[in-house]
């Protein structure tokens, strides 16, 4: 028997806030989190603005009860999981619980800081410092900390990673393989990813302008976003209320290029249309699209065209929230799932910051001012990445 995967709570940590409520406040006020890197030690600090969480590893560790020697991705992940799970942590006894996380950097922030010693094969005790390098190790620090054991996994599909972890968690709830799932992902800033994206020449040296004709690229950000999914049994036991359900999901591959999207966004189009089909609705039922909208020439053009193809003259209200948070890579699907949930809960459409000029190859424009008191029943959230990985999720109010 199939059941719905209800989102009952969220946890969020980004450059615009330390929890769901403070991130929402910043979204409403139009307050961006993009600025100069203060904590990340990089040559590019003055040239490449980022969406940095203004908390040191020590502060993150103190709040979560983890050791500050852990990778930063584990610390920010634990912070957001703590917010999401804490109302139910004492009530979930006997429920089958899973943790579906995602990241792309693993413990790279530590590895890159000790790599010169690894390279020299120096005898100083580095193996312990790199033992959390794996993506899966970061997940397990968090699952062990919160005592989640029934199913724990890590997905790593570049920028679509955490949309996929939510998809898999929803499927396992629907099939009654689990009662409760914490699903999403996290990535911290690292020199590795900042320099990697910089060599691709797709980083904006100014705060990014997604879906603007004169966009120059993306800003990297760091963040963690998780949703708590429950079946009805878990909701009853935990006295939890459904905000919305994960009604649709799809994962497709663009099969065009390792890093670039196909000009017409074939993978994007497939992911969106299959997810809407899975939700049992029609494109015109979508009330808001949380765009992947990175701000690169390539992504926004492909995504924009795919949306035009799918929705025709009835493109729903759409915006990218990456102008607030930056592109949080493996975390963005989770972060934006939380924002989509808030759009449904509070009837909001978030503004696409810094939009000025109509794109030449896309006939519609994103929403540029906060819209409140909206009737938002179905939200489509897009996450597209390297390797042609394209995922879309649909969230619906019952």
């Amino acid at each position, binding site marked *: 028997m199939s059941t719905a995967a209800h989102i009952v709570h969220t946890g969020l940590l980004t450059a615009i806030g330390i929890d769901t409520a403070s991130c929402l406040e910043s979204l409403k006020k139009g307050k961006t989190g993009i600025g100069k890197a203060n904590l990340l030690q990089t040559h590019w600090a003055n040239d490449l603005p980022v969406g940095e969480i203004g908390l040191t590893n020590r502060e993150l560790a103190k709040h979560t009860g983890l050791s500050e020697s852990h990778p930063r991705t584990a610390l920010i992940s634990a912070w957001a999981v703590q917010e999401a799970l804490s109302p139910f942590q004492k009530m979930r006894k006997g429920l089958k619980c899973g943790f579906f996380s995602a990241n792309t950097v693993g413990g790279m922030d530590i590895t890159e800081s000790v790599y010169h010693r690894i390279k020299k094969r120096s005898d100083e005790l580095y193996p312990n410092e790199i033992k959390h390098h*794996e993506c899966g190790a970061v997940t397990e620090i968090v699952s062990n900390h919160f005592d989640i054991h029934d199913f724990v*996994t890590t997905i790593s599909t570049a920028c679509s990673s955490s949309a996929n972890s939510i998809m898999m968690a929803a499927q396992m709830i629907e099939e009654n393989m689990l009662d409760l799932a914490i699903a999403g992902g996290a990535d911290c800033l690292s020199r590795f990813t900042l320099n*990697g994206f910089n060599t691709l020449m797709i980083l904006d040296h100014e705060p990014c302008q997604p879906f603007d004709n004169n966009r120059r690229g993306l800003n990297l950000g760091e963040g963690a976003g998780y949703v708590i999914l429950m079946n009805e049994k878990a909701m009853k036991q935990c006295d939890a209320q459904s905000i919305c359900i994960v009604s649709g999901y799809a994962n*497709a591959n663009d099969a065009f290029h390792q890093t670039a999207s196909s000009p017409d966004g074939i993978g994007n189009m497939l992911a969106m249309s299959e997810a809407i089909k899975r939700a049992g609705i029609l494109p015109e039922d979508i009330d808001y699209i949380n765009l992947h909208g990175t701000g690169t020439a390539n992504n926004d053009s492909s995504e924009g065209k795919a949306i035009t193809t799918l929705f025709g003259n009835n493109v729903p209200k759409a915006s990218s929230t990456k102008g607030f948070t930056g592109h949080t890579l493996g975390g963005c699907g989770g972060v934006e799932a939380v924002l989509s949930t808030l759009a449904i809960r509070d009837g909001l459409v978030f503004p696409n910051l810094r939009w000025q000029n109509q794109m030449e190859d896309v006939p519609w424009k994103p929403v540029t001012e906060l819209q409140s008191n909206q009737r938002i029943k179905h939200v489509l959230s897009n996450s597209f990445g390297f*390797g042609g990985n394209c995922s879309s999720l649909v969230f619906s109010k019952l």
Partner: protein
Amino acid sequence: MELYINGIGVLSAAGISSKESFPIEILEKEVSHLTCQEPNYLDYIPPMQLRRMSKAVRMGIGAVKLCLADASIQKPDALSVGTALGCLHDTENFLSKMVEQNEQMLSPTAFIQSTHNTVAGQIALLTGSNGHNLTFAHRGHSFEHALFNAKLYLNQHANETVLVGGIDELTETSLHLLKELNVYEKTDRKPSDMFIHSTNGSIAGEGSSFFAISRTPSFQSLKIERLHTFHTLDINQAKEEIKQFLALVPKPDTVILGINGDVRTQEFYDELMDHHFSTIGCAGFKHFCGEYPVAGSFAIAMAVWATRKEMPQGAWLARPSKSVKQIVVINHFLHHFSCWSLSASK
């Protein structure tokens, strides 16, 4: 679980699979690690692309090509891949230059190919596969979780075929670090000795195995009846989990065990052999492929071959089975355990 394996493709240190043969070379000398053998890729990868591909990506594509041929299919409907460590070589390549050159004058190629999903992405590119495409990076369960995902996908797409694979590459640095962390033994040893005496750590390996998975059998299928995974630091809990698993599955005629020559798990496997499998055929596989996070995928391919043709002679540890029809596979990588029940009966 009711899934069928309708084709296999294997690249391993013991050789490369084909429709007629399964890799069975065992190195009879002392080695520091086992290196995956590779086919001539030029038959299906353009030379320009091949030159830029890391070993992890090449191994993935190579095993996929063998698997598609074995299953007689042109293009997979979906891909589900497990790789605990991802594209280590390209990751280190970029990292090394970034540190040495103080974040200056870097080239993007290695970075582009450093993400875990590079393998699945390149397979999609080369096979023109627009379908579902996932990559799991969850330590010693990466491959098993890729199979769980295939199950979830096939529940909603009943008539399709998913390619499920496990890939991990070994690099000079990862070998060094994993020896320092006592995952692998520091001194050289003979692979076949791992069943005779155990040491502090196993022998490192690498490889790539792919499987064509669907809900309907073909003429040469092996059925996956049940898969159970668990993570524990407590060996007694592991024994208990396995006892419970064995109570739920048909009595096997053959067991394949992930004995890896590491003293820390030797007693665990000895006890399994004495208590649960004292009358049936017992086989090992890590002397063929070495120890790595997705080595369990080699064992599953070996099980397919054993039911289709025969168990490789060098695999038997005790009581070679006259006929291999009902198999249990028990494997571990560090603290991640997996138990499989496989059946050749239709």
